[in-house]
């Protein structure tokens, strides 16, 4: 399974060295706090500078989406491991906002319901190796992404 090929997010998790932390997303300062948390988790997992920047940027997009469109939520950071000593980070961003009406459209570049550039969700998918989105109108949105250490 090469990075980019994988689609399943529930990768095998090794119990050894498994750590997980959950951070609230309620206001602007939380956006900064979550970025810092993801960066330190990425450094600890052994990502190089490019990998760190990409996963932190992905987190920044998802967390901001949850804050602006979902009315706040949580970010869960999990250090994960797989066969052959492969290591990575899994980020789960959940909100209980209005949900996304048309997921395909939301993943298309240039799509925006807000004032942004409209690259957020589609761009985030390109920054990570695995991307899954679970949403339903009125129930909220959960986005789970995984990036492996290359």
């Amino acid at each position, binding site marked *: 399974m090469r990075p980019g090929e994988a689609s399943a997010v529930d990768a095998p998790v090794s119990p050894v060295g498994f750590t997980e932390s959950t951070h609230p997303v309620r206001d602007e300062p939380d956006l900064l706090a979550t970025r810092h948390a993801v960066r330190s988790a990425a450094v600890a997992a052994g990502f190089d500078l490019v990998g760190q920047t990409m996963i932190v*940027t992905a987190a920044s997009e998802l967390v901001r989406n949850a804050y602006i469109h979902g009315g706040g939520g949580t970010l869960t950071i999990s250090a994960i491991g797989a066969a052959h000593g492969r290591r990575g980070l899994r980020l789960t961003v959940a909100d209980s906002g209005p949900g996304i009406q048309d997921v395909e459209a939301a993943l298309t570049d240039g799509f925006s319901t807000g004032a942004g*550039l409209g690259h957020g969700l589609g761009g985030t998918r390109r920054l990570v190796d695995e991307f899954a989105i679970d949403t339903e109108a009125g129930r909220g949105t959960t986005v789970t992404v995984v990036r492996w250490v290359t």
Partner: protein
Amino acid sequence: MATEDDLKVRDLLVRVLREHDAEILDLWVRAQSERAAVTALGERELRSEAAGVIAALREGLETGLPVGDVVERHAPAREAVVRLSVRRARAGVDPTATALATLALKDTLLDVLREHTDEPGALFSAAITVNRLLDAAGALTFASYVEGREEIIRTQHRQMLELSTPVVRLWRGVLAVPLIGTLDSARTQLVMNGLLEAIQADEAPVAIIDITGVPTVDTVVAHHLLQTVTAVRLMGAECFISGIRPAIAQTITQLGIDLSTITTRATLADALAEAVRLLDADFPDMASERVRSAL
């Protein structure tokens, strides 16, 4: 529900607070000083503050408000307690020591009451009343302490916003904004205001925004950068972005953000060189003036 007993206890308490206020004041200030951590406040300040709280509590008891509500509803008492707490928050006293300040008054009052009351029954009712009165004060102390700290944080946040967005003159006709940290909408507004005003004041043809100190460039940050560049161009100046590191460059392309309409450079030095080249070509007057001043 002012029963006769209740009135008697209240009278006793008011009397003790009035007749022995100097003693209570001394004991309370001493108790606070012993608990340390309030050294930043100074003895005189501590005394005048304590005297204010004691007098306000006494007046509050005299109004006949329910004991538990005196601190909340008697405005002078409330103000005195809030002031005590906020002053400690500003002086950097920790929350425990601040809460202990009001608790120390409880001990002090009970000691003084014990000395001046012979009747055990009256003492017991008075103790309950003191507890009710000062538990409310303790709760208010804590709430206003947190509020005081939050006020400090808000002030610092505003100060930091201004500190971190200076517009510097790099060269004749070249302005630069070295950005540190993140670029949210509030910062963008500040940067844009500062930069546009400086461009007008300096009649600068080129501005450089340096993002070496911005760790994360996501779509929102990119959007804000594009907005700023557009605004600068509307004023007839050119705007470069420098400090694009390898990791940032790769992330921006993966995100699908198109910055190709903007002149970007890896370092501030490169951007300055480009700016000077542009000035030499477009503003030979400025260039010759520069040579003259160099000579």
